[in-house]
């Protein structure tokens, strides 16, 4: 090796950072301190959340950067500390994480870690039960402006009304809260109630009062009420209250706006009017301060407002997750019936000693099996076991060894489609290279004639398809190949007759041909370019010699041009093969790998290549996500790409050359 040891200037002290200038060093130290402070903050949070792998990656990067800048010996690494940091974080970490994930069960249903899952199961609304001796409550939800909830509860056993909020413990309802303080019912009376502090206005007096105004303002949900005396039949001599159809009123009760028989009361110390309205069994009490009680049920309590049916429907998912009352004796909404509440308790509690969940009523044990807590049927009677869920969800992710690969080999309905995808991946890449290379070479040979005018312009024009981003060309081709409307089938149908043109989207074979057509168009200019370059590098005297030896044009091509060309462009062809091996864009944008392969246990299509197939497993719309299985397939692709690369560099030995040269 002729390597020269040259790692900076030796005269600087151990902590000299750059050119030795004090300000420069200080600036650098300051920058390093900032980076460290940030890294430390990030690390603490990651460790706090037990995100071990990422924490490790960040730690490695931080230590690396510090070492590079603080150690004289590691001076060269200072230059690629940004690059190495990126490499560790964005390349090494994802690669190692892919390998790790391939051996786990990281997928829908197992997306959390064990700690999270234990907490999730213990607090899951569906996994709660009402212990013996506890009563159910009928529950009506209220909400205030801060989005906090209050429940109006009526005990099913004690028939007592209670109020409970998210912050305060449960309490029996006071008359003030119920909006009925000072109200006294009079059996068969007229008026049917007496109200303390208010004076009943008989119809004549009411008429006099109402003569001055025809609407009264009340709170939610009654809103503005118009009051008028009814003309006509004398059998109803009282005033009528007409609810003008405030929407809220209708929403809550489902009743149409209608007329009520109204009783007006006037406050003893003012002009405020209290309204009591009756229609059959329905009653409505509207107080001048805005509180409204309908059929004994207040519509506002403190700042809380009863939710309309529609509002209630919108939050059925949220309500069961809320905790009401005291923390250690909470009340929950029944997740299976939003109008019910009770002192529910977790059905499954984790027992650290056994590393298992214990069912609280029967004592059944759930032990972890590959990331899922599974019922140990021996721990409980047969009848009880049949009543209990066999497993608890969610599960957590855990290393499951070779399960994913085993599944690939043993599951018939997985293996069949996978083999097809695999073969098409290779065929697709190979045929793409073959087709583009053939056409590109032909064009390069055609253009390789000095007599052709304006060769550069020809070349530039033919280059255009290659210059257009593939995501655009593929979409354009998707339109061209549209089976009913596209230009190609439009033209073809004129030749072969309507209905006989290929089904580019629906027929597996034609879909494959369609993709190859697109690939040919996308790729041939590139091949033309590299062939042109290679052709120009073949010495002319070799042709002259061949001509002298009497070789004809084809022989010259077959035995001279082609071999020399292949040596020159061979590595590029293999690189192109490797690229198309993973050409996600074209296939995903053309038809997402469709049409689907029937009877496959995971989503797979006839034109899927490994990477679109993988993508579908991880991010596909149907059937959830399976990161673990996708990662397992990624490892398969890794191996294949590695094999192609090794082959390629055996072929060229360019690695040794590039590493040795200086």
């Amino acid at each position: 090796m002729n390597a020269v040891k040259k790692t900076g200037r030796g005269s600087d002290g151990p902590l000299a950072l750059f050119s030795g200038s004090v300000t420069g060093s200080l600036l650098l130290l300051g920058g390093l301190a900032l980076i460290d402070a940030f890294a430390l903050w990030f690390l603490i949070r990651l460790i706090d959340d037990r995100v071990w792998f990422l924490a490790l990656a960040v730690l490695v990067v931080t230590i690396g950067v510090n070492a590079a800048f603080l150690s004289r010996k590691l001076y060269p690494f200072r230059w690629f500390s940004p690059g190495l940091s990126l490499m560790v974080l964005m390349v090494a970490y994802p690669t190692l994480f892919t390998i790790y994930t391939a051996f786990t069960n990281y997928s829908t249903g197992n997306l959390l870690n064990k700690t999270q899952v234990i907490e999730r199961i213990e607090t899951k609304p569906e996994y709660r039960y009402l212990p013996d001796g506890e009563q159910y409550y009928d529950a009506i939800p209220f909400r205030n402006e801060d989005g906090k909830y209050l429940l109006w509860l009526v005990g099913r056993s004690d028939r007592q009304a209670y109020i409970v909020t998210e912050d305060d413990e449960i309490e029996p309802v006071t008359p003030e809260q119920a909006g009925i303080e000072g109200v006294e019912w009079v059996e068969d009376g007229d008026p049917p109630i007496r109200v303390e502090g208010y004076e009943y206005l008989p119809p004549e007096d009411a008429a006099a009062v109402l003569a001055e105004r025809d609407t009264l303002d009340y709170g939610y949900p009654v809103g503005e009420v118009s009051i008028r005396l009814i003309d006509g039949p004398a059998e109803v001599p009282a005033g009528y209250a007409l609810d003008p159809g405030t929407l809220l009123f209708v929403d809550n009760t489902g009743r149409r706006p209608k007329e009520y028989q109204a009783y007006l009361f006037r406050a003893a110390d003012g002009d405020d009017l209290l309204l009591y309205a009756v229609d059959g069994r329905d009653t409505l009490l509207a107080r001048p301060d805005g509180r409204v009680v309908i059929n004994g049920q207040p519509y506002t309590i403190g700042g809380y407002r009863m939710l309309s049916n529609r509002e209630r429907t919108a939050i059925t998912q949220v309500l069961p997750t809320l905790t009401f009352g005291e923390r250690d004796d909470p009340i929950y909404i029944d997740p299976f019936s939003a109008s019910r509440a009770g002192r529910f308790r977790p059905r499954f509690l984790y027992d650290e000693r056994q590393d298992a969940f214990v069912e609280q009523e029967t004592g059944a044990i759930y032990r972890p099996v590959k990331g899922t807590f599974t019922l140990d049927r021996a721990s409980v009677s047969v009848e009880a076991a049949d009543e209990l869920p066999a497993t608890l969800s969610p599960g957590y992710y855990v290393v499951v060894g070779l399960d994913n690969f085993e599944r690939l080999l043993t599951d018939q309905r997985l293996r069949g489609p996978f083999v097809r995808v695999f073969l098409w991946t290779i065929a697709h890449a190979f045929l793409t290279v073959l087709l583009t290379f053939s056409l590109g070479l032909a064009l390069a040979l055609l253009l390789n004639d000095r007599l052709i005018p304006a060769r550069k312009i020809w070349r530039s024009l033919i280059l255009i398809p290659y210059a257009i981003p593939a995501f655009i060309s593929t979409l354009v081709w998707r339109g061209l190949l549209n089976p009913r409307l596209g230009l190609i089938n439009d033209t073809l149908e004129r030749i072969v007759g309507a209905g006989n043109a290929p089904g580019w989207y629906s027929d597996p074979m034609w879909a494959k041909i369609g993709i190859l057509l697109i690939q040919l168009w996308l790729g041939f200019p590139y091949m033309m370019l590299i062939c042109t370059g290679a052709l120009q590098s073949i010495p002319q005297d070799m042709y002259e010699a061949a001509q002298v030896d009497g070789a004809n044009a084809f022989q010259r091509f077959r035995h001279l041009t082609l071999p020399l060309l292949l040596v020159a462009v061979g590595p590029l062809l293999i690189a192109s093969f490797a690229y198309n091996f993973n050409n996600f864009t074209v296939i995903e944008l053309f038809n997402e790998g469709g049409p689907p392969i029937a009877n496959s246990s995971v989503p797979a299509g006839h034109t899927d290549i490994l990477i679109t197939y993988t993508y579908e497993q991880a991010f596909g719309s149907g059937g959830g996500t399976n990161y673990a299985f996708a990662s397992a397939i990624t490892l398969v692709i890794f191996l294949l790409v590695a094999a192609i690369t090794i082959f390629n560099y055996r072929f060229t030995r360019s690695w040794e050359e590039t590493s040795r040269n200086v």
Partner: protein
Amino acid sequence: MSSVATTTDRQGRTAIQRERRRQRQRQLAVRIVLLLLALAYALFPIIWIASASVDPRNSLVNLGLIPRGATLKNYETLLNNSIHPFTRWLWNSIKVSTITMVLSVLVSTFAAYSFSRFRFRGRDATLLTVFLIQVFPNSLTIVATFLLIQEIGNYIPSFGLNSHGGLILVYLGGALGINTWLMKGFFDSVPRDLDESAMIDGASHWRIFWQILFPLVRPILAVVGILTFIATYNDYIIALTLLKNTQQQTLAVGLNLFVGEQFSQQWGVFAAGALLGALPVVVLYLLMQDYIVGGLTAGAVKG
């Protein structure tokens, strides 16, 4: 044996020469006809889409190579579209690609300088790693990358999902291997005598890099930069995975939404978008053709 074609024409050419010449011309004509066919094949989708973009019917039905009438209405619709913010997507693509280009070139140049100018323990191992990562495209590890960016986003949202910061970070990682590898080759071709004499004069590495080597490799930086820009602009899989919010998406993801939802009904507007979207890259290609070809044959494949 009799001598063949001894007759000579007025210019003094023999019959054989005339025959050769005629054959040559016929051959040339055949070549040009074939080239015209190739050109037609290369250009017809482009002509078709250009025609669609000015066709007033804005539909895929019965669309030919020649538009029936010409209008800029489709372009207007495209540029004033609130559900499909085309201009926003185009801007996002250009922004992300430009930032990636600049940062990637910087990072790779630093690394390449180190590889080219220093001999140190671990150099071969690091070099081999760089070589290996440029072999495996980072779209392969898209699942892990997605999970990583999602995790980072839990702590630093501006580098998480739906952020351009996270996307650029992934692109930088992806471009690192190939760019460092290309750049190292170029640095190697700059004679070491230059910086050695500067070093004797007392210049620091920092100064040597910026004042001597950087100006020398600038043309190469441009090529690597443009290749990075194009590769980033053309990426589909990573942007698709990381960007779910319409306002944040790049053109590659956005344009597909356009087609997916309103395929045949809005074809004219899509066509206008396709042409405008292709324009920046096609112009770059045609202007920088010769440089880019050099870069491509040095090992980069279209991506």
